[in-house]
């Protein structure tokens, strides 16, 4: 057995051990044991992934493990990348879980909820290593079911959790059905269900079959990835799940939707016509813009992060679409850069989103609220958490020297340098895509300035926020690990170069898309370069230098009352809230967001000119949901009610139905 096999088996065994520990141990030890097992399983999965991206492959077929098809596992560099990603996120979240779930034994620390956590990690590790259609579908469904149960772990807490669970269950199962149809069609068309057989037979598929399979699979995987318009489950499930589960789902599970698209479209089907990629790019662009606009106006911290997940998935899909489009146009260098951008962004997003969801969990843990309008003042009460969240926010806002900036730079490079020979479609699509990325980045900065500035800085806006205390060390340690990974990816992104080389070679685009020393980041076939290390050292070094010189040259600072126009001390009510911060953006994008606002003015009884009270209400419903999903739900509901009338409970009626059906079948048989 090779390294991949050993590490992978160890990961699955450790996850099983963790699950049984969660079931049998008393509440005092449960969190620590499950957390430790999750960390160990994550590390083992990451080791398997690291071995796979450095060139060790592994294949095995166990015929007897499942009836009919057996289990086929196959690990290549592509699978290794996602193993590494899932394993890394699981290790970080495992450490965090110990402190977050605590010893209460209730809610997320209940027996079942804790036992499911390692199983969820194991299912996520199985998805990328599945080597046949049936094994893949099994792992996919296992992942869906375990994550659904974890989302529901606080179902007694609020009805919103149950609604979120319902949405997630419905959408993930619909997605599963679509993927099942697509992959089954594919397997039937090539006459074999192992991925190797599909790959070999894909060249002979008719365009109808391959395009049909692409559309079905893309719909299913995009809904798992949270791409607009298949996203409505995501802001609910991510917001209502316990935060360590949100972190796992947003940082790791959602990426497996991306994995599915890459596996099917690039690997199994071997690329496709231009319209596939234009469609994928359009979905990506809409997701990026709509996601970040909704995040910019969200006041619920976890909902904000969930919509930012949609945005980042949009950017990743845009990168994949650019890679496919450029590969179809024969521009392999650009395709390599775009693919590298998409893959690096999966890792970067996993890093900063795990960190930010854990940070949101710490805030929730300390204050009991996720509403940014009720928070504030945490930077003095939770300094370490605030510092770590700042690292994550820097990455999420795609500002240098954060890690998100590097992958956005790569994506922009891929889009910028393709115009001259690309034909009309690329000439139009590339600048539009650049504008989308730019607007997304700009609004993203505003969003995370809002999240950090109103959530953590200045004065607390509620008693709960004023009473916040710093999180326990295990939670800080988990977040610290994630912050360290983010910093590493930000400063030396070239560590990913060998892995990206193998993935790109496997997917038949330019090999070695990234290269350069540890300091410079260079691209194959594109003359641009940056050195993230120099940028980071420059910004930090010069800032520290100026602060030190100013401190030495000037007088010491003194605390004083802020300028309050001479009218008493400022209160928290006078601070800008998240709602008011986002108001200009909400106004600028009013046509997209369609906010519902009410202003009620109550006049004094004596005179209509005297105002007694003003009440302002704003609601920002998800427009895609209300326009696209509500009508479908209403229609389904109506059909269901109409169908109710068919089943009155009368046995005679049912016998009549059966007789009619039998006669119909017989008639059909005779006529045939």
């Amino acid at each position, binding site marked *: 057995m090779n390294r991949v096999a050993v590490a992978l088996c160890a990961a699955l065994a450790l996850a099983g051990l963790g699950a049984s520990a969660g079931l049998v141990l008393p509440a005092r030890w449960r969190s620590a044991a499950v957390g430790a097992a999750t960390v160990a399983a994550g590390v083992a999965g990451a080791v398997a992934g690291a071995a796979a991206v450095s060139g060790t492959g592994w294949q095995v077929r166990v015929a007897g493990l499942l009836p009919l098809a057996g289990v086929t596992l196959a690990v290549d560099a592509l699978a290794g990348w996602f193993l590494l990603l899932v394993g890394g996120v699981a290790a970080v979240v495992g450490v965090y879980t110990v402190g977050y779930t605590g010893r209460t034994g209730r809610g997320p620390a209940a027996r079942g909820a804790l036992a499911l956590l390692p199983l969820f990690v194991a299912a996520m590790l199985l998805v990328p290593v599945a080597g046949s259609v049936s094994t893949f579908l099994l792992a996919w469904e296992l992942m869906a079911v375990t994550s659904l149960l974890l989302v529901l772990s606080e179902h007694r807490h609020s009805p919103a959790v149950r609604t979120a669970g319902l949405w997630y269950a419905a959408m993930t199962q619909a997605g599963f059905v679509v993927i099942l149809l697509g992959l089954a069609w594919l397997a039937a068309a090539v006459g074999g269900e192992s991925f190797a057989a599909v790959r070999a037979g894909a060249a002979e598929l008719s365009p109808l079959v391959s395009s049909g399979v692409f559309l079905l699979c893309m719909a299913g995987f995009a809904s798992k990835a949270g791409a607009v318009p298949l996203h409505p489950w995501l802001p609910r499930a991510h917001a209502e799940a316990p935060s360590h589960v949100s972190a796992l789902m947003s940082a790791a599970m959602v990426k497996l939707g991306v994995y599915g698209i890459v596996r099917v479209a690039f690997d199994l089907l071997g690329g496709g016509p231009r319209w596939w990629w234009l469609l994928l790019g359009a979905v990506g662009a809409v997701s990026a813009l709509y996601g970040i606009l909704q995040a910019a106006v969200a006041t619920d911290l976890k909902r904000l992060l969930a919509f930012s997940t949609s945005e980042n998935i949009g950017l990743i899909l845009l990168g994949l679409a650019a890679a496919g489009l450029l590969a179809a146009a024969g521009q392999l260098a650009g395709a390599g850069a775009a693919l590298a951008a998409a893959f690096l962004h999966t890792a970067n997003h996993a890093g900063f989103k795990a960190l930010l969801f854990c940070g949101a969990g710490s805030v929730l843990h300390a204050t009991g609220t996720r509403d940014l309008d009720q928070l504030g003042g945490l930077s003095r009460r939770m300094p370490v958490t605030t510092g770590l969240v700042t690292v994550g926010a820097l990455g999420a806002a795609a500002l*240098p020297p954060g890690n998100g900036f590097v992958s956005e730079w790569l994506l*922009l490079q891929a889009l910028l340098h393709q115009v001259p020979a690309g034909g009309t479609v690329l000439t139009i699509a590339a600048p539009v895509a650049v504008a989308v990325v*730019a607007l997304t980045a700009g609004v993203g900065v505003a969003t995370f300035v809002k999240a950090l500035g109103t959530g953590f*800085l200045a004065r607390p806006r509620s008693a709960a926020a004023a009473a916040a205390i710093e999180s326990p060390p295990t939670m800080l340690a988990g977040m610290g690990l994630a912050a360290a990974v983010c910093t590493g990816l930000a400063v030396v992104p070239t560590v990913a170069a060998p892995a990206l080389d193998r993935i790109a070679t496997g997917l038949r685009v330019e090999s070695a898309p990234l290269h350069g020393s540890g300091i410079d980041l260079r691209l194959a076939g594109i003359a641009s370069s940056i050195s993230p290390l120099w*940028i980071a050292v420059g910004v930090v070094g010069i800032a520290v230098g100026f602060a030190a010189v*100013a401190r030495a040259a000037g007088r010491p600072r003194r605390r004083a009352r*802020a300028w309050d126009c001479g009218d008493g001390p400022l209160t928290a009510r006078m601070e800008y809230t998240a709602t008011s*911060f986002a108001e*200009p953006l909400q106004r600028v994008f009013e046509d997209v967001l369609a906010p519902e606002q009410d202003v009620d003015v109550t006049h004094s009884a004596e005179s209509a000119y005297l105002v007694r009270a003003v009440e302002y209400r704003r609601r920002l419903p998800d427009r895609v949901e209300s326009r696209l999903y509500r009508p479908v739900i209403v229609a389904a509901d109506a059909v269901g009610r109409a169908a109710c009338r068919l089943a009155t409970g009368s046995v005679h009626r049912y016998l009549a139905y059966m007789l009619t059906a039998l006669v119909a079948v017989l008639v059909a048989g005779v006529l045939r």
Partner: protein
Amino acid sequence: MSAAWIMAVAQAVLVAAVAPLLVGFTRAVRARLEGRAGGRLVQPWRDLGKQLRKEPLIPADAGMFFTAAPAVLMATSVLVATAAPYLSTRGPLSAGVDLIVVVGLLLLGTAALALAGLDTGTAFGGMGASREMTIAALVEPTLLLSVFALSTRVGSTNLGAIVAAGVSDQARILTPASALAAAALAIATLAEAGRLPVDNPATHLELTMVHEAMVLEYSGRDLALVEWASAMRLTILLGLLANLFVPWGVATSLHPGSVALAAVVFLGKLGVLGGLLAVGEVFAAKLRLFRVPELLAGSFVLGLLAVITSAVLA
């Protein structure tokens, strides 16, 4: 230290030294045109010196972000001033800091200052931060489309390569695409530097101020650092505008003579652009905040046209 590093440091020092003078110059031109006597050219430098001697106050509820923001803003300005090709295209950071990084660094400075505004806990700070981030978000597409238009003709976003190509092949600059990109970038520069008609640097009126609202609570050396860095941002942006579209005079070697000549030419270009800015500001009124997106949408369309024109003509 190699010659390239000496040149880069000299360039940063030059930008830092000239920036307050450029502000003083635009104020003086404005004052003359408006029939006032106005302050002297070195008045901004004197103000900085005075602020440095005063005691810095921090609001009771502000934290680390408030005290760190001036240094971060200054760091972004200094890094761009070191890396951009103002004097020579052979800078030491030419391969490490490209045009996209410059855009990102400027945005980082904006974000740091916006966080500081929120950290004060006053309504003014939040208001300024909110407005500034809205404008910054909307400027971003124009900036990157201009980058696109500029980088297409050389196949790289590296600043040194773009300016060097302009110096060596001047016919490539005088194209319709360049003119459109220059117009787009000029509007974006006004918005980024907080000048009329987007923001009025001379006002402290609650209803209209953007940048000044964010920095209202700064005093003493912190205020000096913020004002100095902001003046440097204006110099950096005008300098970039000048050297990207009118690259004549920029040295393509590290020869001291040509670098010195480049410095003189650079100062001349800054003077002309600063004068134009001041003249324009005399005749322009500030736009209402919610009319600014229309202006920026206009600049975005110019940028898009620039990219498509350059692709069609290529």
